[in-house]
């Protein structure tokens, strides 16, 4: 089948397969990553044509400089309380993650996923949007729930699939859902939430409402058709939605090059659809806040969707089922040049004199105590395999509004046992 022989005059084609620059054993080297100085990127007016944002998709919106100062046109100029609240939320998310990760390791549940290094992306966005806006998240935005004061206890009960699980043991751990907190059900099927969020936003526009939607998707999942359908519909109908791509550069074992990140940025997809696009330092809480607020104002003013790439790094493994040292150098995360979002926001608060070491230490103490307390309380209601949610009858409920005959029969068969 090799035509070479037949066509000596033609060059032989070959398949290009993207490879990350470092594999286990190699030195991690992030020196090739272009990092524009904080404050160096211009900020278009909310009402500017989408094309005015299109040079930004190849740069990086950054607010916090290396000293921790907030600089440049994107500085959201937040009051100290908001800054402290964001720091607290991010610290709490991290404490919660560590705790639940260990709980899984201790066999108390089947599965867990951390968002280490990505806390700012969810927490800052939640604070930049209104309380009655809706979120269509992936499994790495637990920060959205924390920022909206969703009880840790409920989150833990879901993770344990125990008697207190609001989802009645039906969902895999971390697949939270809560309507009252505007947090849409997380799906195990990647990318499906993206066009759903667009539909929700279209509905809001249809009803002359003023609420907007935000959705999150991973770099890897942008390859799904759902992503394309979401952005296409959002552009066609100018839906009031913020489309967030969390580029943490990994999709389980494959790096972002396999997802289409080798030739251009994910923010650049916005150019292809003619909608507004921003590329943001995802480890900079102020940059995430500013970009989200910009996109939210734009959406609320009926100016349509914005695609935001949050450039970050997946510091930990993909999930408790994954060991990243099998495919990338050990400790790569620690070397990530954009640093740690929690440390960077803390540094800023310290720099502006609105925070100090003692307060930080005691907050850290309070938060871990809070997490420990919630965990104790949660475990009273059981853990997976040890008093988890178990109610055969309820297994058949909520498939339909009413129980049809075949499910009634199936339920009764089970109950007879």
């Amino acid at each position, binding site marked *: 089948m090799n035509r070479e022989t037949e066509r000596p005059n033609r060059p032989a084609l070959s398949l290009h397969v993207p490879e990350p620059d470092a594999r286990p054993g190699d030195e991690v080297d992030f020196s090739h990553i272009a990092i524009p100085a904080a404050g160096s990127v211009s900020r278009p007016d909310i009402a500017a044509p989408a094309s005015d944002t299109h040079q930004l998709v190849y740069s990086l919106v950054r607010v916090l400089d290396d000293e921790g100062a907030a600089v440049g046109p994107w500085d959201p100029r937040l009051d100290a309380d908001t800054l402290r609240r964001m720091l607290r939320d991010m610290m709490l998310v991290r404490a919660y993650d560590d705790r639940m990760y260990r709980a899984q390791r201790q066999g108390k549940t089947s599965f867990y996923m951390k968002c280490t290094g990505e806390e700012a992306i969810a927490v800052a966005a939640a604070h930049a949007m209104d309380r009655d806006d809706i979120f269509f998240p992936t499994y790495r935005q637990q920060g959205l729930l924390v920022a909206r004061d969703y009880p840790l206890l409920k989150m833990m009960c879901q993770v344990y699939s125990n008697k207190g699980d609001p989802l009645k043991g*039906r969902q895999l751990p971390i697949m939270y859902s809560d309507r009252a907190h505007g947090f849409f059900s997380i*799906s195990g099927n990647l990318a499906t939430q993206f066009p759903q969020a*667009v539909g929700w936003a279209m509905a809001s526009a249809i009803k002359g409402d003023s609420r907007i939607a935000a959705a999150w998707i991973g770099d890897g999942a942008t390859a799904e058709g759902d992503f394309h359908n979401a952005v296409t519909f959002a552009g066609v109908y100018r839906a009031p939605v913020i489309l967030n791509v969390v580029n943490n550069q990994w999709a389980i074992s494959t790096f972002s090059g396999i997802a289409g990140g080798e030739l251009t940025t994910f923010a650049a997809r916005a150019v292809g659809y003619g909608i507004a696009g921003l590329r943001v330092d995802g480890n900079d809480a102020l940059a995430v806040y500013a970009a989200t607020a910009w996109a939210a104002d734009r959406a609320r003013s009926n100016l349509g969707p914005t695609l935001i790439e949050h450039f970050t790094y997946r510091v930990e493994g993909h999930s408790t089922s994954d060991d990243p040292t099998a495919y990338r150098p050990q400790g790569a995360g620690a070397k990530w040049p954009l640093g740690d979002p929690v440390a960077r926001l803390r540094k800023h608060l310290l720099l502006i004199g609105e925070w100090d070491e003692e307060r930080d230490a005691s907050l850290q103490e309070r938060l871990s105590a809070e997490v420990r307390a919630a965990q104790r309380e949660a475990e009273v209601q059981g853990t997976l395999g040890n008093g988890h949610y178990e109610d055969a009858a309820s297994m058949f409920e909520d498939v339909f509004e009413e129980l049809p*005959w075949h499910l009634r029969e199936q339920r009764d068969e089970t109950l007879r046992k």
Partner: protein
Amino acid sequence: MTVRNMIEALNDAHKVMMERDDGIVVLGEDVGYFGGVFRVTAGLQKQFGTSRVFDAPIAELGIVATAIGMAAYGLRPVAEIQFADYIYPGFDQIISEAGRMRYRTAGEWPLPMVIRTPYGGGIFGGQTHSQSPEAFFAHMPGIKTVIPSNPYDAKGLLIAAIEDNDPVLFFEPKRIYNGPFEGYHDRPVTPWAKHAAAEVPDGHYTVPIGKAAVAREGEAVTILAYGTMVHVALATAEAEGIDAEVLDLRTIVPVDIEAIEASVRKTGRCVVIHEATRTAGFGAELAALVQERCFYHLEAPVIRVTGYDVPYPHSMEWTYFPGPARLGPALRKALED
């Protein structure tokens, strides 16, 4: 009362409901200004405006997914998939999302939405304008599947589907949009006007989801059918002079098991007919149910008359189509055994 064909009846169901509830929106390919390639949504955009009736990009995934989002918001979207053959790009969103949302949110996010789609052959549409994919949707939890066989039921069932608080797949037998088809392709088609079920009440009424109708009473054998096949069954019973009872299922999930059991217990014989391919089609489910529940009343095996397990061929449509020429012998066999 107005005499309506199926298209007019479906169109009227939209109008009646959209006038009552401004949360009902219609989206799909060509459904807006043009009113749909089969004209089911004709005039709706003019009456209700572009933000309630609008054309969608050619992206069935996006159509279903945005409808899910709209239903999650609180609207009642009615989405049209232009041909059932083109529903597959939206399959994941239907199966994995719409069908499971109420369950996985413990009831917090029910999805009241309807997906309408013309299905079935008999129009020389070839492999991709003739399919009957209903069995796929019967296999996955959380989705109701409705298939009318005449204008009266079409309007009443569509209204019931729009008012239903669960996702409903609404399959429209396109071959009988304009008139009942008995499977004799060489005979002139009688328009609905000549048919009692074309007497369609004006205004609001419903036909309950999950309830079958006895299209013909009989003692000798039960024929389980839906959509176009109801008319094939009726015509074949007449032609063969067989005292068959014809059940028009109208809904396949949840299927009307009581009606099925009552009829088969009475006749002791059962033939299932559908246009979809045979293997793992809904006829298999019906045969399995009947033998499970009426085994000791059965005097003969349940026979399936179905489309063959091949793609719907263009020029040999009438060799493929399960019409009277195939149902007749099956009925006789059911009686012999």
